[in-house]
């Protein structure tokens, strides 16, 4: 019996090793959420990202003037303010009595640089050069001067991983600004899309899309993009709209993290769509 096992193992050693390593890989995949695995990942990420950050100056061919960065931050704040005011104007036009509208929430912004990018059609991720020591936490939105870029997915002491809009596992509650119809924005590998919008809503190409009040992860009214195309489903009751983001994610740089902590109370509610 032992001889048979020995012969069998020797004859099929490649297959046995292959199956063993595949099983180990699959079990690692299923245990990504465990704290031990997360700690190991944070340690490795934090140390290697330091090496990447030393070389990332290569991708910044032109050194930016510090005052230019300050202007970009100011621009990002103004972009958020303008979009909020645009929404307020639409609401007024529709004769909503919102005299008790809350004051503009001033979100503190942290300027960040991209250290490295994991380029994939489906899983767009960045690593940025800010982390826990800059009070960055998982779930904080990341924006540019033009609009939403993504969300902080993982944080180490000095670096963070950003899950971008071009990541199929990121689903964002959004609203079409003019008509206040809500939907969930997803990435299908090619385009950003919002599915199953009833055709009773008058959605036009060019309508602006922003984060929704529904979202417990993103503050509302952050610009996301514009409607570029819409498609009706065969039965004609629903359509799918495609969104062109304001920011070109592939060439994104000079980003800002919005220091907004998601509400724990909202997260615990059963109706939270982002859970």
């Amino acid at each position: 019996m032992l001889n048979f096992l020995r012969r069998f193992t020797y004859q099929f050693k490649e297959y046995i090793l292959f199956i063993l390593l595949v099983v180990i890989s699959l079990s690692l995949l299923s245990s990504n959420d465990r704290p031990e695995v997360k700690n190991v990942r944070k340690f490795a990420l934090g140390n290697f990202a330091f090496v990447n950050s030393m070389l990332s100056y290569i991708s910044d061919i032109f050194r930016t003037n510090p005052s230019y960065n300050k202007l970009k931050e100011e621009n990002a704040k103004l972009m958020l303010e303008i979009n909020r005011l645009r929404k307020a104007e639409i609401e007024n036009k529709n004769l909503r009595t919102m005299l008790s509208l809350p004051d503009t929430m001033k979100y503190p912004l942290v300027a960040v640089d991209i250290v490295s990018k994991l380029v994939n059609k489906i899983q767009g991720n960045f690593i940025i050069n800010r982390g826990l020591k800059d009070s960055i936490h998982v779930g904080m939105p990341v924006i540019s001067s033009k609009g939403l870029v993504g969300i902080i997915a993982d944080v180490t002491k000095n670096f963070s991983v950003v899950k971008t809009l071009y990541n199929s596992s990121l689903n964002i509650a959004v609203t079409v600004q003019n008509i206040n119809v809500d939907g969930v924005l997803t990435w299908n590998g090619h385009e950003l899309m919002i599915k199953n919008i009833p055709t009773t809503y008058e959605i036009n190409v060019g309508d602006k899309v922003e984060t929704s009040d529904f979202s417990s992860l993103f503050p509302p009214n952050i610009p996301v993009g514009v409607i570029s195309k819409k498609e009706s489903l065969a039965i004609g009751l629903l359509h799918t709209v495609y969104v062109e983001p304001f920011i070109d994610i592939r060439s994104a740089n000079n980003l800002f993290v919005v220091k907004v902590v998601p509400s724990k109370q909202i997260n615990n509610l059963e109706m939270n769509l982002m859970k």
Partner: protein
Amino acid sequence: MIWNFLKPVLIFIPLATLQLVIVPLITVYDIAPNLILILIVYYTLIYGQIFGIIAGFVLGLLFDLISGSMIGASSLAFTVSAFIAGYFYNENKIDINTASFLFVIILFLCGVVNSFLYSSVMTNNPDVNFVTLILDIGILPGLYTAALGLPVIILKPKKGIV
């Protein structure tokens, strides 16, 4: 013998840095080559299937740790790719496999499998359809990776230093 195992790991470190910092600059519509795969396929064709499988697993795991993606995704994809590349290993034809156009073809095949498997494992979105996975995420990155394998066969050192 130990040096044979250390060589890929040492070459992996600068390659991984290039993959994360420089390769995003040369992508075409999010289609990027995989430099780590070139390394793994090359060493599989030189040292055999078992070496390749182990190298694929270890280097894939390291890459998952340092890139911020799901742990196990790259290790699975590289292990399978090395297993396929290992079928082309022949100790009498190492030079033919690594210094001729056959290397590019093997690289293309492994690149397609690697990209497809990696993306299939990472995505949980039903809107990503199978044709997109095969064409955009499988074949095109495989082609790009194979194209970057051309300098390997042109510049392959004769003395086997690498």
